[in-house]
């Protein structure tokens, strides 16, 4: 039970640091000039992973492919880039930058001529299930892999889910249908355009497009390699080779045609190297044996070609031409190539809707090159500003969303064009509004009343599409929870489940996978406590907590950089930053110990992860400047206890978002209470190492009103609009 354990103890108490986080050289306004200082250790950032492009691996290619390349210079250039990425991965021995599972939203376009071709929803669902087994190596028949090849059968860490929102953000089933007058399509892409009897693609940046249709000539399906035109990106599958029921017909009735074609879509080549029946072609993967031509039917093991005995061809690979029941595996090298594709040319897919979900924040990103920030104005109304290449409504302007809030707005996103924002009202109840596409619910300036009497800020996390878990502290400082399952709030829209405890400061929650939640709070003894939801029950019990030690002086910040990996950051009584981590089996550095990361911090640290071996931490120093340190998988930079100075005089907790590998966006307020922004683009800090982009606020008006306000409100900004009372949905 929280607060009933041993007195405060923290074995890692250290002397005050004399190094970093003390200099003040710049202000986050005006020219944003001036340099940082007080750095401890090397100042360079980004010298860990993701650096220079290494040499390109030379690959033999096949005549037919060369013919295609010669026909389209842009396609050829993109294909070169894709191959460079794949080679860079392989040569540098880089691990994938995406943490954990990539969950790819799928839209299935059913284009039918005869009613039988209008396949059922269950047939489509059966295909998605097959993909989720084959790309996770959970297919039951993987055990039929011949023993010499079995160790190579690898989990591709990719899952597929029917899209739950359309490109415009409207709720969707991920299935579209139309009848066509075309009796049979060919591989000429006519099915991918409404004008030619098919259906138009959804944006390739966010969806895997699958067209299901009648195909001429017995063709089972075809794909488009990454790097091609968006309008035709995706795979096309014959209706009778799709899924495992309905019209699916043997021997292509186990859903493997889609597995094979999506392999191409993720840059896999045919396993024999597409050189006819020769031995000179390559599939650009090193752990698949050299093989003559494609195998068909259900070959007997071993089938030797190209002197590849004794084990012969890896004909049971999804990228051979065998029957569905004979193909059961991707190799480790193929998985590496697919992951390189996801980190490279397909880096935008599956990020918003499938990535590990950080805890709610006033700043979120639901996709690459997309940022949403929420602030309260001096009128305590909610305001919104977003970036999709340019800032809207303008760099310094904000969209008015009504309400009178008493907490820092907390936003979460479970998919493209979907945002859920939570605040507490003047009655301390929780209020909610949501963005679907371009339309706010329950209305532009209205809110859904969600009951409760909340202390401090709510915290929200989404572990999957159409799923929200909300945590608040009650007046008894116990933790309370409610959840949205896609159709209803439980226990109800205005009631909460009590999770016990006596918590200081706001809770922190993170999800590293579907149906998984980890919650961190500070107890009355200032120790860190943990509880978790494992899909079936709360651990260690409904109202119990795991004590993790420490003497914490701020609310914890937690991140999951990979499944079953957690990092928690707090400040200690010496003001230094401390970390503890879960490695999948145990807490590091010990059950109740912490790793000391130096500094003298004020307020709560901010932490983000853009890859499984990457952490970026931001803190505010005694000088109110912003400081940064990073974990590159090997060591802390610039040093274990040192920090990179990023300038500024900050008046709020820094909020950082990473919308992709090697990308960071930091938001904070300055002494003028305006919002400021800086970003890391992989090459350097912009607009400069100590500079900030001014994002609006009227300094004098805000200051006058701020003096009249008593409650602490984070990231406020002024706005000319009149205050309006919190309105609940009518």
């Amino acid at each position: 039970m929280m607060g009933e354990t041993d007195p405060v103890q923290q074995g890692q108490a250290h002397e005050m640091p004399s190094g970093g986080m003390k200099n003040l050289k710049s202000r986050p306004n005006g020219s944003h000039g001036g340099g940082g200082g007080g750095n401890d250790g090397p100042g360079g950032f980004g010298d860990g992973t993701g650096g220079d492009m290494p040499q390109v691996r030379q690959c033999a290619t096949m005549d037919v492919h060369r013919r295609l390349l010669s026909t389209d210079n842009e396609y050829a250039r993109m294909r070169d880039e894709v191959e460079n990425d794949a080679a860079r991965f392989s040569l540098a021995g880089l691990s994938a930058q995406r943490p954990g599972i990539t969950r790819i939203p799928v839209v299935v376009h059913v284009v039918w001529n005869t009613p039988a071709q209008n396949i059922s929803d269950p047939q489509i669902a059966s295909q998605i299930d097959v993909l989720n087994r084959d790309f996770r190596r959970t297919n039951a028949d993987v055990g039929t892999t011949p023993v010499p090849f079995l160790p190579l059968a690898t989990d591709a860490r990719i899952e597929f889910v029917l899209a739950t929102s359309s490109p415009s953000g409207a709720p969707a089933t991920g299935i579209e249908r139309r009848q066509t007058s075309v009796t049979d399509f060919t591989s000429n892409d006519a099915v991918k355009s409404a004008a030619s009897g098919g259906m138009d693609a959804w944006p390739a940046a966010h969806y895997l497009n699958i067209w299901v249709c009648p195909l001429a000539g017995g063709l089972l399906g075809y794909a488009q390699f990454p790097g091609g035109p968006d309008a035709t990106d995706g795979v096309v599958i014959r209706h009778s080779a799709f899924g495992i029921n309905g019209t699916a017909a043997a021997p292509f009735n186990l859903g493997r045609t889609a597995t094979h074609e999506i392999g191409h879509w993720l840059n896999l080549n045919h396993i024999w190297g597409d050189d006819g029946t020769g031995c000179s072609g390559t599939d650009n993967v090193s752990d698949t044996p050299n093989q003559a031509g494609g195998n068909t039917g259900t070959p007997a093991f071993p089938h030797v070609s190209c002197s590849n005995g004794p084990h012969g061809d890896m004909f049971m690979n999804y990228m051979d031409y065998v029957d569905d029941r004979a193909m059961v595996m991707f190799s480790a090298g193929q998985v590496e190539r697919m992951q390189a594709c996801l980190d490279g040319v397909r880096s935008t897919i599956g990020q918003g809707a499938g990535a590990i979900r950080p805890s709610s924040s006033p700043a979120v990103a639901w996709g690459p090159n997309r940022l949403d920030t929420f602030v309260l104005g001096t009128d305590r109304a909610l305001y919104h500003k977003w970036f999709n290449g340019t800032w809207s409504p303008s760099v310094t302007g904000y969209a008015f969303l009504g309400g009178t809030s008493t907490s820092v707005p907390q936003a979460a996103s479970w998919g493209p064009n979907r945002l859920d924002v939570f605040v507490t009202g003047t009655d301390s109840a929780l209020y909610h509004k949501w963005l679907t596409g371009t339309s706010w619910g329950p209305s532009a300036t209205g809110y859904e009343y969600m009951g409760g009497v909340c202390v401090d800020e709510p915290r929200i996390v989404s572990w999957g599409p159409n799923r929200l878990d909300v945590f608040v502290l009650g007046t008894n400082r116990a933790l309370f929870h409610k959840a949205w399952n896609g159709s209803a709030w439980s226990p109800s829209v205005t009631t909460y489940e009590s999770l016990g405890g006596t918590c200081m400061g706001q809770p922190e929650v993170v999800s590293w996978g579907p149906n998984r939640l980890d919650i961190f709070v500070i107890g009355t003894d200032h120790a860190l406590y943990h509880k978790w939801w494992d899909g079936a029950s709360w651990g260690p019990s409904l109202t119990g907590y795991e004590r993790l030690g420490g003497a914490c002086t701020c609310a914890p910040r937690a991140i999951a950089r990979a499944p079953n990996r957690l990092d928690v950051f707090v400040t200690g009584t010496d003001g230094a930053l401390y970390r503890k981590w879960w490695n999948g089996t145990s807490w590091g550095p010990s059950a109740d110990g912490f790793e000391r990361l130096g500094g003298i911090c004020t307020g709560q640290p901010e932490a983000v992860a853009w890859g499984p071996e990457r952490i970026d931490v931001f803190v505010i120093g005694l000088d109110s400047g912003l400081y940064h340190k990073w974990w590159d998988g090997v060591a802390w930079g610039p040093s274990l206890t040192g920090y990179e100075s990023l300038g500024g005089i900050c008046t709020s907790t820094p909020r950082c978002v990473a919308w992709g590998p090697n990308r960071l966006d930091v938001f904070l307020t300055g002494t003028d209470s305006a919002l400021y922004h800086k970003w890391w683009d992989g090459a350097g800090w912009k607009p400069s190492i100590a500079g900030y982009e001014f994002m609006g606020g009227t300094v004098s008006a805000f200051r006058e009103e701020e003096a009249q306000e008593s409650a602490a409100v984070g990231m406020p900004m002024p706005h000319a609009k009149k205050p309006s009372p919190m309105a609940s949905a009518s």
Partner: protein
Amino acid sequence: MNQPITGLSGTWTHSFEEDEGDIQTYRPNGSFAFPPSRQGRDTLDFEQAGQVVSGTPGPDDRLLLSSSGMTSLGMNRFRIGDAQVIEVIASSPDVLKVRRT
């Protein structure tokens, strides 16, 4: 079978299940029910003015098309492009049988 063939026309798809030795069987698109096959099928589209468009299954299972000139060499033999010669063994509205040399 040995009647001279003066010209070829139509669009044909390789029905490789019916091949006999080095004789390849093609069936007309549209009127023949090809069984589903993961192994793609070559196509031959004989156009006007002595052109033929050959289709070959590509690395992404999509048909790659290339157009070539076709000249009659006599004795039911035709040169396609620079390198390929086909000998037509049989030709009717329902079937085209060729030997590639």
